[in-house]
């Protein structure tokens, strides 16, 4: 039996960065907002302080902050000829499942994606001709421009306490920043983090090779900071427990200590935790949505929450899943290439080398989420000619550490036995003396990489699981070869005692081990309903009072972490709703 609740102005599904930003902005605009979060309440004071943190077993091995696969998961396959099987344990990526979402356990890397991505098809066609883009590569322009998004990037960077060094201030290139970035109106709110030895060594080597290293921009406050909303940050303590952990120093920009507490102080806001949204309800003519149904996962009670506006702010994959379960928009068919919901799923690729320096002492515990130096010479540098290498997109290369966890981090030179005395000795010898150089690469959309509903497997609510079909294509393989070469050249120039070189990946993608939580696409934005699910305001083309906010909206994946544009788009959408939609509800872009 479903209990029908009283109608509210807005219902938000998922309370992480995007849900938190919209909850704050819309309650401040006077709207009554209810947020449904599938996970429980977590706060810095109760959960992310000692002795509850720095617990690798709890957070990394047992995924304390992540989606419970016993309740819902995905099935996975490499191509439409295969039978997809369920992912029974989290592996390759880690969707969050608590108040604050994946914004609790992220590292904080915050990038501005630019017109290189937003106008990708136009750019490549103009420079290289239409034939340069393979037929099965379904990249498309996003329908938004960097200039439109720039103030919203800034708003997110100042909210989240991003530390970094501008490379291009209003058109003037700045020493020490990323010279290839698009112009920004203001510098980052905070100076870069103190570099660690490994990132300094990489910086020198990359500079000697003629590249342009810069400190990686990251929402790890390099000093105490009060953001424009009054949220207070401590300075980063370089404890090394960033990725997959909540921050004990309140130094990592996270929704649970910024926008969410502000929303929660408003009488217009109500949070319901342990609330699993099962369906978005359409009205009889299919032009609007009327609310959502959800289940209290603690006792199984079912509710209908009517609302004038529905905002899907869950993890990107879960947003797409809800659209498919609710029959909103035409499901994508990769064989017929018809429909849109599920189209253009993209992941990321990479290559990495480990460098061992006998006698160096890196102290790998001393680092922050953003303790890396990065080069963008093969990414946002449009002067880098892709034609001789025959790939589209790009990759960034970073050197240093992200995290060096005592259970999982065991760098040993290739050829070391995988167990026994020799392995133990090598582990003790090299633990303090290793550093990494990694490339993170873009993945271009391909007609066969997509989501749909699985025909066989169901979740705890009796609903079909989401099915993911994904593999790397020639474009990624060629880029991997190029990236591995660049990494190995820089690595060799540093004269390590031993080197585990980077290798381009050629094997099919698998769902283990952990690779990256940067899943994009499935409910993409664009210029026409024929080619996209959402317009540039992340508003559904089918139902104008439904907005779907997250990396699901990206028509392809770049080499960058997605949170910068995810946060910026959340503020952008909030403005569109507050300033335009509520005054005149209807499509914000005419189809």
């Amino acid at each position, binding site marked *: 039996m479903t209990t029908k609740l009283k109608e509210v102005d807005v219902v938000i599904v998922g309370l992480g960065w995007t849900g938190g930003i919209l909850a704050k902005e819309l309650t401040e605009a006077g709207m009554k907002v209810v947020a449904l979060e599938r996970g429980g309440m977590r706060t*810095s*004071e109760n959960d*992310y*302080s*000692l*002795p509850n943190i720095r617990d690798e077993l709890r957070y990394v091995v047992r995924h304390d902050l992540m989606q419970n696969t016993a309740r819902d998961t995905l099935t996975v396959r490499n191509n439409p000829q295969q039978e997809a099987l369920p992912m029974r344990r989290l592996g390759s990526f880690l969707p969050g499942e608590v108040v604050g979402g994946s914004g609790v356990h992220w590292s904080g890397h915050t990038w501005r994606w630019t017109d290189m991505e937003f106008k990708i098809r136009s750019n490549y066609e103009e420079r290289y001709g239409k034939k340069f883009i393979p037929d099965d590569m379904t990249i498309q322009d996003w329908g938004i421009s960097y200039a439109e998004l720039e103030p919203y990037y800034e708003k997110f960077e100042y909210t989240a306490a991003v530390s970094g060094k501008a490379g291009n201030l209003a058109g003037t290139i700045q020493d020490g920043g990323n010279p290839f970035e698009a112009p920004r109106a203001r510098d980052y709110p905070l100076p870069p983090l103190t570099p660690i030895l490994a990132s300094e060594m990489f910086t020198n080597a990359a500079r000697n090779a003629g590249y342009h290293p810069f400190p990686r921009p990251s929402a790890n406050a390099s000093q*105490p*900071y*009060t953001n424009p909303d009054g949220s*207070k*940050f*401590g*300075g980063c*303590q370089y*404890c090394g427990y960033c990725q997959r952990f909540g921050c*004990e*120093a*309140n*130094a990592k920009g996270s929704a649970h200590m910024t926008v969410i507490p502000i929303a929660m102080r408003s009488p217009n806001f109500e949070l319901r935790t342990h609330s699993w949204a099962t369906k978005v309800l359409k009205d009889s003519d299919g032009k609007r949505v009327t609310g959502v149904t959800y289940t209290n996962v603690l006792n199984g009670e079912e509710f209908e929450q009517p609302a004038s506006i529905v905002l899907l702010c869950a993890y990107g994959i879960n947003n797409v899943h809800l659209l498919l379960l609710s029959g909103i928009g035409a499901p994508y068919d990769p064989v017929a290439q018809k429909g849109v919901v599920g189209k253009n799923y993209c992941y990321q690729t990479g290559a990495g080398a480990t460098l061992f320096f006998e006698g160096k002492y890196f102290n790998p515990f001393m680092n922050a989420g953003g303790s890396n130096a990065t080069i963008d010479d093969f990414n946002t540098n449009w002067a880098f000619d892709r034609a001789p290498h025959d790939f589209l997109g790009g990759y960034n290369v970073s050197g240093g550490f992200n995290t060096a966890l005592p259970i999982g981090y065991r760098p040993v030179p290739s050829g070391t036995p995988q167990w026994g005395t020799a392995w133990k000795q090598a582990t003790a010898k090299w633990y303090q003396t290793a550093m990494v150089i990694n490339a993170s690469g873009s993945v271009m959309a391909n007609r066969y990489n997509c989501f749909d509903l699985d025909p066989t497997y169901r979740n705890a609510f009796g609903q079909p699981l989401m099915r993911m079909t994904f593999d790397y294509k020639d474009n990624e393989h060629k880029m991997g070869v190029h990236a591995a070469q660049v990494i190995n050249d820089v690595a060799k120039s540093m004269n390590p005692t031993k080197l585990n070189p980077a290798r381009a990946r050629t094997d099919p993608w698998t769902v283990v081990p952990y690779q990256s939580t940067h899943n994009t696409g499935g409910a993409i934005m664009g210029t026409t309903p024929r080619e996209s699910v959402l317009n540039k305001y992340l508003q559904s083309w089918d139902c104008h009072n439904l907005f779907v906010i997250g990396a699901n909206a990206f028509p392809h994946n770049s080499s960058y972490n997605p949170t910068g544009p995810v946060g910026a788009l959340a503020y952008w959408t909030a403005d569109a709703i507050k300033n335009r939609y509520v005054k005149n509800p209807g499509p914000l872009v005419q189809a």
Partner: protein
Amino acid sequence: MINTMRVATALSVLLLAGAARADGDAVRGEARFQDCAACHRLEAGTNNVGPSLHGILTRKAGEIADFRYSPAIKRSGIVWTPETLDKFITDPQALVPGNRMPYAGMANASDRADLIAYLTKASQ
């Protein structure tokens, strides 16, 4: 040159070991309090990541009943005075090894004097 640096270091160690300076400026200290404000409130009964600092200079360490202190702080036996606070803030792990406050310390003595002058007023 090396000798001068050694002398300077030795001098600063002597200064660190001395009593807290009483000439702090509470106005400047309010700005220094930004180092603390992400975790500590000044109002009574408002524990955050750290315990409320209300009445700190009238208390013993580890005394607020509903805050979960580290065993190290509870055992420390410290009575908070401008002097003990100064020592603690200089390098918290040096004075109370194993305490849970994620803060590396405030190295500059006049910054600490300003902060303590501010806390003396604002924690009442």
